[in-house]
């Protein structure tokens, strides 16, 4: 008796539940199951600064898309895990994303070391792989569904410093000697290798060419050795702590080079800019976006305002000029490709991404055959009129003048460096 009654009750309860669930599901008209985008991101460890900033930008994108009603009518969801800046964790994360979480799409983590380990897994599933700031990863894999958002250009290694050496060659009298100095790490060594090539083809003589360990504390012996080599141009490839050390040492030693800069990561970040202050003046360094009028793409200002709001108190770059717009854009590309092909067919998506031009917050994006940007937009910017201890000055134009490429130029070079 008891059994039967409770059984009946259970049936009624289940029916009610099913009804309620049905009502919930059908409430937003045809809201299908969410579209899941999976990725790993460096949220701890060495690259966490960039990884966390990227995640903030990506979350702004998700908010925007869902406000518009999602993609293909499906709300967008992220599934992501912290790779702790350890490449060894990446394969596990992507196989989990694809085989257990069953995400619909994947995008990459930040940086070459974290992108490469995901490649074989993504390739086996033949998925489109939008990637975030990997340097020439696809040179090895030749994967035709790899799309890299960093505007390094079709030949990333040499395009990186092409502008730097072209600017040098234009000066009168033409500088003759070059010093190339690089930190011992994947990106910096590749940048230095590209610089070496550009220096040779530009007819410069390399008088100093050394690498130094990432753990260096004092950079003045290196700068003095460069000074002793009498280099006209000094090309530095470095990560943030070394960039700060090199700039400070160059100023303290009174380096007499005529051009100084190149591939210094870190000089794009507001905290470091503020601290270095006037020591930055006249340095010519690569960048990807600066608040100059020539680069005022539709939507980028609004995006940055929201990023800056979201970044408060998170301990990430407060201005977010360098990476976040691109982290937003690589998802925009994916979104536009899905909307254009009206589906998730990876082959069609890849085909579309190869031929279309995408309108994003970082301007028009068009991919070359190898998945890099079809034309390089590695900017060479020169620091100008920087005042001490003032972060706000960098949020407006006039402090980082674009010298190269010509299409985006916003001012003329100040030469030589040490005035």
């Amino acid at each position: 008796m008891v059994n039967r009654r409770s059984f009946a009750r259970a049936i009624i309860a289940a029916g009610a539940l099913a009804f309620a669930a049905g009502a919930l599901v059908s409430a937003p008209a045809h809201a299908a199951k969410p579209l899941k985008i999976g990725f790993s991101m460096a949220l701890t460890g060495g690259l966490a600064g960039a990884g966390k900033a990227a995640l903030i930008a990506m979350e702004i994108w998700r908010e925007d898309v869902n406000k518009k009603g999602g993609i293909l009518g499906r709300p967008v969801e992220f599934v992501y895990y912290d790779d702790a800046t350890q490449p060894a964790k990446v394969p596990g994360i992507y196989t989990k994303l694809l085989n257990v979480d069953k995400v619909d799409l994947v995008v990459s983590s930040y940086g070459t070391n974290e992108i490469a380990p995901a490649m074989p897994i993504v390739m086996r599933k033949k998925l489109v792989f939008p990637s975030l700031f990997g340097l020439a990863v696809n040179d090895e894999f030749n994967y035709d569904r790899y799309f890299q958002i960093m505007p390094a250009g079709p030949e990333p290694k040499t395009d990186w410093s092409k502008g730097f050496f072209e600017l040098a060659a234009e000066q009168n009298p033409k500088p003759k000697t070059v010093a190339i100095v690089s930190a011992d790490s994947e990106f910096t060594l590749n940048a230095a290798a590209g610089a070496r090539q550009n220096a040779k083809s530009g007819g410069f003589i390399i008088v100093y060419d050394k690498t130094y360990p990432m753990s260096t504390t004092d950079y003045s012996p290196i700068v003095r050795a460069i000074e002793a080599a009498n280099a006209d141009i000094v090309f530095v490839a470095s990560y943030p702590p070394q960039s700060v050390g090199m700039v400070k040492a160059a100023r303290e030693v009174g380096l007499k080079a005529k051009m100084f800069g190149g591939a210094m990561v870190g000089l794009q970040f507001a905290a470091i800019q503020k601290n270095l202050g006037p020591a930055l003046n006249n340095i010519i360094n690569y960048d990807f976006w600066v608040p100059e009028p020539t680069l005022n793409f539709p939507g980028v200002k609004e995006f940055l305002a929201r990023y800056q709001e979201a970044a408060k108190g998170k301990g990430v770059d407060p201005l977010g000029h360098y990476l976040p717009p691109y982290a937003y854009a690589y998802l925009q590309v994916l979104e536009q490709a899905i909307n254009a092909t009206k589906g998730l067919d990876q082959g069609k998506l890849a085909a579309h991404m190869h031929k279309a031009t995408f309108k994003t917050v970082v301007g028009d994006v068009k991919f070359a055959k190898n998945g890099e940007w079809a034309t390089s937009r590695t900017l060479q910017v020169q620091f100008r009129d920087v005042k001490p201890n003032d972060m706000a000055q960098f949020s407006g134009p006039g402090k980082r003048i674009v010298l190269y490429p010509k299409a985006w130029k916003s001012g003329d070079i100040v030469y030589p460096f040490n005035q």
Partner: protein
Amino acid sequence: MLKTRADKIFWAVLAAVFLGGLALTELVANEYYYTAIYAILQATIMAVAWNILGGFTGYVNFGSAAFFAIGAYTAVALDKWLGLPLPFLIAASAAVCGLMGLGVGYLTLRLKGVYFAIATLAMAIVLETFVTNWEYVGAARGVYILTPEKVPFFRSYIQLLFVVMLALTLGSIAISRALNSSRIGRGLAAIRDDEVAAECAGVPTLRLKLISTTVMGAMMGVAGAPYPFFVTFVDPLSAFNLFVAVNAIAMPMIGGTAHWIGPVIGALVIGGAQEAITVTISSELNVLVVGLMLVLFITLAPQGIVGLVQKWMKRRKR
């Protein structure tokens, strides 16, 4: 070989685990489990290897990451140079790192206690600098290893790596157990308790120490050899990762260092927890949990899990 009942049980379990692993590749296609287990197995070999020196003789090796990385880079270099198949690469890595271990063994002649630990740390940094400047294997730029898409007998490359790693792990455990429970093991324990006394009592301390450092080195090399094929991109920074060294020390400590099963348990518990936490609790908490676990375990149960169990069993007997 099968002298006692314990022996029989041990080998039966080993065989069962291996066959179970093989069966798994037939039954389960989901690649995630293989990548996750691979990481745990790698940690297990490292922990077992570390314990052969650290647990059995009391010499603390700070430089585990160096053996691991040299194993990985030996595989990379030979793969690039001769294109040898994986088993040969593993054997070569074992040989190279075994020799390295032998060299470290001679260090113990002069260096005791913390001096030895610091020497291994220094050795790791020196070796890292060499690899960082070694152009042939990509220097600090790192090197890509492309893995074949199809492999015979298995559904995917990761399954193959998983089975290889499983076999290597079981082999390491068997060697560790053999060392622990043989005459050699008793000699090693004597060194741990009092090296001078052991020497006086006629224990060939140097030979025993050389055996254990060589075996340790070879095993760590073996753990490192398949790593390039697992991640497909290796650079010195990630190969000489501090985490490799930390885990190799922490896992035996948590499992219990005196018994051969200690590091295995520690690796399964910590490695499993790390894998699980990576994909459940995102971001920093992951590292925090591992740190807290380590501190709590070490303070509250200094003999490790094995010690806890032994204590509990003793109490029950009473």
